[in-house]
């Protein structure tokens, strides 16, 4: 005879209702045999159809009105589930709350990952935008810098790009009826908007003629600025605005939302004005890497093709200009990588932490649901005996889990929304695209489908347990004795051990991060920020182009500041420590033969006199005097790091430095202490301070040390600057301590997130432990009663329960420590001067973990000792 296909029979044996399984299987075999004469395929199809019908009939348990019955059943089941959940508000509330917290936090993290890392940047053909970087193997260089001549040469030679452009960011003050206004602007070449796939919404882009030096000044405005400052007047195109003291004719308005290249310059700003980048092929040093080059891939060309082509071009440039380009490498990266690449690691860390917390809370919820199934085993046994099929019982267990997780998912959406709101209100420093992080339908769909999936995950084990709920003896034994089987207990224990282990690993991680943050707090920044007020201005174009006028402005502001009775000292600098602003260059020490591969390199700062005194920076030798403020400067201060690195620790005072390719020679008159200019956690680099004259940076900061509270100086500084020049906007005004705080914001944020997550995980896992042990105690009350009746005293019962907790905690501790050790290398990058295997942190964590476990284990343990044997045994 012909047997039906094995997989079909295998399925049928498991899916058919037990009451008819034998006969139906027989009928199916016979029917299949009969239909074999028509064809094997037809017979198989018939068999499958019969199987499906059997399932539907079983689910609906009716023939004619199957679907209606199914729906009615589902509603009935849901009502039963809701009622049974409401009967145990504590269980329901704790499950929903813990899960909602975890799901909400996970949803927020997903939104961040989606908004920052996954979603393409908001440009047409964003994946075709490529950034060019010239990188040096030994010098510290960030990606994204290029030179004008290389831009011109590469653009002329390449066939891989349909457009290339050069840009740089610049602060700008726009003067008008409403007073001076500070805006961010970008100098861009003519094809810039083509690279970003955008065209002005009104008007036109720049022409090639407009980027030549000496062309009529023109500007393109952002939609936001046009609405904000110009009242959305469409007659603006063709009129002029005064930017940096020069009248610019407005030729276009960009569309809403276009602010490129803000995301590259500084994620927290919005570029509002674009002006032509004056490209003069004759007058650009090949070594000045202060501009950014981007390109748009031609259709059909991918990044690899473009890399291959530009490598050839670059090799030609290197042999043509060995001095300028010989040691440099050209790197092409997608614009998106350059913009968000640096955020990948921290976000991945938070994501990984989040997944752990979610797993802990899922394990927790699964355990709670499982406990309920076991508690209700008696009820299931009776219902099963009365004719409820197991399918129905497991459906209820699964339904309960789903209802809990979906409710948690809905609350979780609200929590995610609140967390994202917090993130926007208190943005961690330096995170790009935060404004694009929203709780849109994609995130909501992800959260809700995640919670359904969670429901299936945590409901699967209990449902399976309910389905095989034994009728054998469960009724016969009284409900009190109907305990969990070994299998169930093993699963529950494994869940608790896993939870505790993950929580301990997170706890260790968060302590490491917290310890590194504390270390950071103790780092001496190299200056004393207390009592120092800062004001940063972006000098107007006309003052920059007229050095005498600019120096006069700086001098007059400083003189007025110093005359204030509340000011002890005042000074100015071109790039304030920790502000992110910097300028660096090579230099030479006459008479010192330096390694040709390692040309001396230093950060160059321009400062007025009194700068070290105002900032509280130690100084050996003499400060600049008014007589030093001449062009070109003749004297310089250097920091201790430079002395150690390039003078081998010998006294450099009186020695000379050759700067700017030998065009200037200065004499060292003093040595300053080391200042953490680039971040409290970034090593100090060699620094040269020059008198503040002829400095090309437009941004200048005033610093003033108050005799009292620094905050009181804010209004005075604002007034003084306005008195000297009412058209000069102030960009930043705030105490120096804010800059110090700001530089630690990222670490503070990491510490906070890590700490919160670890705290949540620890609480959840301890709740899980208590639940399992409490349940176990309840389950064994009769046993405890018997033991006590036979002479066991309370301490021995206490020891018994505690030992049990420890049996769960000990493997968890081993696993947790192991996991934390394994994650160490990865955590390294987030730690400052703390080893990821820090013995102190590990031992403190394990001890604290032990104390916590013992403390919470006491709750069920003490309950066990209060058992009255008589009550228990009487039943």
């Amino acid at each position: 005879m012909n047997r039906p296909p094995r997989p079909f029979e295998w399925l049928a044996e498991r899916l058919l209702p037990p009451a008819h399984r034998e006969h139906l299987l027989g009928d199916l075999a016979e029917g299949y045999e009969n239909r074999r004469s028509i064809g094997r395929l037809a017979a198989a199809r018939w068999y499958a159809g019969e199987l499906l019908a059997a399932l539907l009939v079983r689910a609906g348990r009716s023939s004619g009105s199957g679907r209606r019955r199914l729906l009615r059943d589902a509603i009935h089941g849901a009502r039963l589930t809701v009622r049974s959940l409401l009967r145990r508000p504590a269980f329901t509330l704790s499950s929903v709350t813990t899960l909602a917290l975890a799901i909400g936090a996970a949803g927020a993290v997903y939104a961040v990952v989606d908004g920052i890392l996954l979603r393409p940047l908001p440009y047409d053909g964003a994946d075709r935008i490529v950034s060019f970087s010239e990188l040096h193997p030994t010098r510290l260089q960030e990606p994204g810098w290029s030179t004008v001549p290389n831009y011109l040469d590469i653009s002329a030679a390449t066939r891989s790009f349909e457009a290339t452009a050069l840009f740089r960011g610049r602060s700008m003050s726009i003067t008008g009826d409403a007073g001076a206004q500070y805006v961010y602007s970008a100098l861009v070449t003519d094809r810039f908007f083509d690279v970003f796939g955008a065209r002005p919404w009104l008007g036109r882009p720049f022409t090639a003629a407009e980027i030549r030096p000496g062309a009529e000044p023109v500007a393109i405005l952002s939609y936001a600025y046009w609405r904000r400052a110009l009242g959305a007047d469409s007659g603006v195109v063709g009129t002029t605005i005064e930017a940096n003291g020069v009248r610019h004719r407005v030729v276009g308005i960009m569309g809403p939302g276009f602010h490129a290249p803000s995301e590259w310059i500084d994620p927290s700003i919005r570029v509002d004005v674009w002006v032509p980048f004056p490209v003069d092929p004759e007058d650009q040093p090949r070594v000045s890497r202060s501009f950014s080059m981007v390109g748009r891939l031609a259709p059909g060309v991918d990044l690899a093709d473009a890399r291959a082509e530009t490598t050839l071009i670059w090799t030609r440039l290197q042999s043509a200009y060995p001095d300028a380009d010989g040691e440099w490498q050209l790197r092409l990266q997608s614009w998106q990588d350059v913009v968000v690449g640096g955020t990948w690691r921290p976000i991945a860390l938070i994501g990984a932490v989040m997944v752990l917390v979610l797993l802990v809370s899922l394990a927790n919820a699964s355990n709670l649901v499982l406990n309920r199934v076991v508690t209700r085993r008696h009820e299931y046994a009776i219902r099963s005996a009365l004719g409820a099929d197991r399918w129905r019982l497991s459906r209820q267990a699964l339904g309960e889990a789903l209802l809990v997780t979906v409710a948690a998912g809905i609350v979780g959406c609200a929590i995610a929304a609140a967390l994202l709101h917090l993130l926007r209100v208190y943005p961690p420093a330096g995170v790009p695209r935060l404004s694009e992080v929203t709780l849109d339908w994609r995130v909501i769909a992800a959260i809700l489908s995640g919670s359904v999936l969670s429901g299936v995950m945590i409901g699967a084990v209990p449902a399976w347990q309910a389905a095989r709920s034994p009728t054998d003896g469960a009724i016969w034994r009284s409900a009190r004795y109907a305990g969990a089987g070994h299998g169930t207990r093993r699963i529950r224990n494994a869940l608790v051990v896993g939870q505790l282990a993950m929580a301990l690993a997170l706890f260790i991680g968060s302590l490491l991060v917290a310890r590194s943050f504390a270390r950071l707090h103790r780092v001496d920044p190299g200056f004393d920020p207390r009592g120092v007020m800062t004001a940063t201005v972006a000098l107007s174009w006309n003052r920059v182009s007229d050095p005498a006028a600019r120096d006069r402005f700086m001098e007059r502001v400083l003189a007025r500041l110093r005359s204030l009775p509340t000011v002890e000292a005042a000074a100015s600098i071109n790039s304030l420590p920790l502000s992110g602003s910097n300028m660096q260059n090579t230099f030479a020490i006459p008479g010192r033969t330096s390694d040709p591969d390692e040309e001396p390199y230093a950060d160059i700062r321009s400062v007025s006199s009194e700068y070290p005194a105002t900032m509280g920076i130690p100084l050996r030798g003499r400060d600049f005097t008014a007589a030093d403020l001449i062009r070109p400067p003749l004297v310089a201060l250097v920091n201790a790091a430079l002395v150690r690195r390039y003078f081998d620790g010998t006294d450099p005072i009186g020695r000379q430095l050759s700067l700017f390719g030998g065009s200037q020679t200065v004499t060292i008159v003093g040595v300053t202490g080391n200042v953490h200019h680039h971040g409290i956690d970034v090593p100090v680099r060699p620094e040269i301070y020059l008198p503040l004259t002829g400095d090309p940076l437009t941004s200048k900061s005033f610093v003033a040390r108050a005799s009292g509270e620094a905050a009181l100086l804010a209004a005075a500084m604002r007034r003084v600057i306005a008195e000297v020049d009412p058209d000069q906007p102030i960009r930043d005004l705030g105490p120096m301590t804010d800059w110090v705080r700001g530089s630690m914001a990222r670490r503070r944020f990491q510490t906070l997130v890590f700490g919160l997550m670890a705290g949540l995980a620890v609480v959840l896992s301890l709740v899980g432990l208590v639940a399992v042990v409490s349940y176990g105690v309840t389950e064994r009350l009769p046993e405890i009663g018997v033991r006590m009746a036979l002479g066991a005293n309370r301490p021995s019962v206490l020891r018994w329960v505690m030992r049990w907790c420890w049996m769960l905690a000990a493997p968890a501790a081993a696993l947790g420590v192991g996991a934390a050790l394994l994650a160490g290398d990865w955590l390294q990058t987030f730690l400052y001067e703390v080893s990821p295997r820090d013995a102190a942190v590990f031992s403190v964590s394990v001890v604290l973990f032990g104390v916590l476990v013992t403390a919470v284990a006491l709750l069920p343990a003490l309950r066990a000792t209060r058992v009255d044997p008589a009550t228990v045994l009487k039943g």
Partner: protein
Amino acid sequence: MDHPNETEQLVLLALVRLGDDAYGVTIGRQIEERTGRSLALATVYATLDRLEARSYVESWVSEPRPERGGRARKHFRITPLGATALREAQAAMARMWQGLEVHPDLRKS
């Protein structure tokens, strides 16, 4: 005594026709041959379940048979109560039909 519904009547009539040879496969085939309606085996069994619960049918299990993969047949037979119910249903229908001639275009008038 409640009236068997249409599917139940079909199954009961098939039982009467088949006599001692009534089991899942033959019942299904009988109904399909005479009415053109094909009922899934599971539907047949679900219907028989309901009928058995009302004592309209009774069942017994045969010896295992090789052509069924070594599985037994479950045979069904109509009970006197079932027969009465079937007659009742038929009579009720007959009373509804009495003196009527139904044409497809009747609803027009």
